[in-house]
């Protein structure tokens, strides 16, 4: 699903997290390398298509911002279905937001299993002195759930690029693993009678049209 015809990887990444933790700022920083620039009035920071070339592999990254308000939490599944990666953002100065991340991780693992690559981002490290989420706790939790952990600051542009790059690399790895499994599975599944007849018709009519 996530591999386009010509070997370009198409990855969908969702940004999840409580409201006001800086999801949009992270995305903005990554898009434009700008932080809260007032001139970006026409720019929307909700969706980003980014093309990367990692180790000779073309990657088309679709990053989706999500509404973080609590009342929209239930809509999460609609957002993250079929996504290859998720960035879970919390505010290091806000312990509740970290709790939210934990909830998200649980839900994602339940819904998507291990197919999705999780990355946890502790944002606003420029406010280090106000930190309320202990560094060790966050990192140990990330390791426990099999997620990467990054400290970022959209304001200072720290760790943003690294975050996305690392996520992309992991997704490629994961994808290639799955691709093998996929081919096995598809070879089983696609044996279904459907495939043959259409191929036939295309051949026949192709010849006829000649």
């Amino acid at each position, binding site marked *: 699903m996530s591999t*386009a015809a*010509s070997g370009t990887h198409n990855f969908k990444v969702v940004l999840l997290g409580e409201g006001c933790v800086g999801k*949009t700022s992270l995305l903005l920083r990554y898009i434009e390398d700008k932080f809260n620039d007032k001139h970006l009035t026409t720019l929307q920071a909700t969706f980003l298509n980014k093309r990367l070339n990692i180790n000779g592999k073309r990657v088309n990254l679709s990053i989706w911002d999500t509404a973080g308000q609590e009342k*929209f939490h239930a809509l999460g599944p609609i957002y993250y279905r079929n996504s290859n990666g998720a960035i879970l953002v919390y505010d290091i100065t806000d312990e509740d937001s970290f709790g939210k991340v934990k909830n998200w991780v649980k839900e994602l693992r339940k819904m998507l299993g291990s197919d999705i690559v999780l990355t946890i981002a502790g944002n606003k490290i420029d406010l280090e002195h106000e930190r309320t989420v202990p560094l060790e706790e966050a990192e140990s939790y990330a390791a426990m759930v099999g997620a990467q952990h990054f400290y970022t600051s959209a304001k200072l542009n720290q760790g943003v690029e690294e975050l996305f790059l690392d996520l992309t690399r992991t997704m490629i790895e994961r994808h290639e693993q799955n691709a093998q499994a996929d081919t096995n*599975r598809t070879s089983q599944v696609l044996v279904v009678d459907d495939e043959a007849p259409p191929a036939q018709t295309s051949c026949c*009519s192709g010849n006829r049209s000649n």
Partner: protein
Amino acid sequence: MWFGPNLQRSYKYMMFASKMPSLRIDQSDLKCKNGCDYFGNPQWQGYCSKCHREQMQRQRKAEKASSATLPKPEQKKQEKGLKLTSHSSFSKFEEKRLRQSETLKKANLLKFSVFKKSNTEDHDHSSEKRPPEFKIPALVNEGMKSEFRARFPQLPAQVDRDARVFVHSFIMDVIKCANVMTVDELSERVQRQYQRFMKHMDTSSHFANVDSDTKELLMDFVEKHAMTYLHELPSVVFSPSGTDDERLDRAMSERIQQLSWVGERHLECKLDRSNAECRTLLYKAISELLGMDSAPGPGGKLARVRRACRHVLRLCSAAPASADDLLPALIFTVLKANPPRLVSNINFVTRFCNAQRLMTGEGGYYFTNLCCAVSFIENLTAESLNMDKKEFDCYMAMPASIGGSSWAAALSLCGAAREAGEQRGAARRLLQHAADLQAAAQQLASNALSFEEQIAKKVQDVLAKTPLEIKPRRELPRLGKLQEISTAPLIDLGTSTDREEPQPQPVPTSQPQPAHTVPVEPKELNVTLDPPEDEPKLNILGFEVIDRQSPSKSPQNLDQTWDLKRTNSLELLTPSPLGFTPFDSRSIDELMTPDDFGNDQLPPGLSNINYDIDLSDFSGDNSIAEDAPKSEPKDPFSPDALKKTQTFDPFAPQTSRGYDAAIDSFDEFSFVDQKHKETDPFEVVHRGQDPFSPVEWNVDLGKDQFRSQSPAKQSTSILDDNDSPTTGCLLPSPLQPQSSGRPN
């Protein structure tokens, strides 16, 4: 592969689960009823995709078995079109399909032409068991062909052919399967078809030189055309029968209506109703959302959603709008828009849009947001609006028409404003159009003016070249009627001037009456009449007469032979080049002749004769025609002329007596006179009388206009006369006898 559908369904479950008391998903709610680890879906009766398919297969096997035992009666029933009392929803579904396929077949029989053959053949190849039910209209292929040429001019024709072949087989496959599959199986099948085409593009040599971007465009292209056609088939892919889509559409619509009281403050989105720009944006977004239903393909629908969401994004006041702002605003927009068949549209896109694009593109993102909005609306509670439960219930109990009036008013204002804008634009276009018309009219007027001036100038030029000389020429006609015809044109040019001088002289001298008025014209008229009298002479001395005339036509009188020829045939032709003058003189002469005769001669002679002549005069054309022909025939009819002359003779002498002397003075006349003294004097007299009498008399009678106008008219009439000499010949004869009769 199992996960994909699972996720999709789970999302659908989220959207349409109606029982959900809270927005929180409970794990147990999501699980498959079978107790396997996958998630279930209400549309699959709570099973997961795998279990549901097994279930369906079991069910279908059972159906097959039952239908195998009773295949014929069922078919018969359907063929007769009897209303089946369907016990299971499935049989109803089948019946509907069949009926629909029949109507389609009928329609297609009319439409199909080009691809009919290959279609049926394809179909037979793919499934020989069942007869071909559907034929894809050639329109689809034609449309693809033309659009392909427009959009991918650089791609080889082979690609085009591949795409069309694929679309064709794709449509056939879907239609075939729609009868037997559930929507979700069909959806999976469609997705597999998309993947197959992708694979084909990757592997086929035809696509070797196509880059990945173009391939994606091709994919969209194929999807668009296949789905656009399928979309129009009732209940195949769009809100297919067997699903709850239609009912959900109604439910959603009612729900949204009920929630019309929900305002921007409930959703915590910052919309300013008093801001005109904000209203306009909202209005645009709403109209885009409303337009989604009419877009045929999933691509078109996605594009609509994308545009709508862009408007919504601009609606959000925050500088770079985030999803936190987008979603509430979008929910609000959907609430205000209440788009028709919303659920059907969303399901259609979810099922049959290329999943690749739905997952990655910008359109897909916005569409997902729309799905979220719809889901949120569906499951909206007091809690989600941060409201007191009682208050919420109050609002919900309230009739739908009461709520949201302020925004409705604002939006209708917006609509009115837009309409006004359109009207203004239309008015502006109309004004512009009117201005253009006016400018064109002015241009036309000025053109007409300049044209008029040019014409006037030309006329003046022409007049300056050939105006007055005509009159003298008329004198020539004395020679004889035959001569007259010939002479008239001749006179115009040079001779006229010469004659003018002599005429006035003779006029006064010969007869007092003619002398008063313009001598020239009347003289000519007289001539026409007279010639018959002269004819005998002409006959005898035809050449001579001609000689005399020839000088009149062309100033140089030397070429007698030429003149003769001209007189007979050329006269008629010549007048046009010569200009109006000759005709005028003739016409006038002709016109005059009757009057003149009457006036001049009548006082002494007969009034009866005048009347006949007058009638002819009034209608200038007729008179001309008559006169011209008269002149013509005279020459050829020399014998007749002789007779006429004889009759005329008596007449002539009366008038001619006084004029003789004057006539003698003219060169030509003198010739004539010398040869035929009797006729000559007559002619002279006539001439003298004619000019005077017509002018004076006519003036009295109010015929002046005729004269002035007559030249132009006569010229044309003369031409006509030329064309039909025979008629002319006939006409003159009566006149001549009449004239001759008068004297008698």
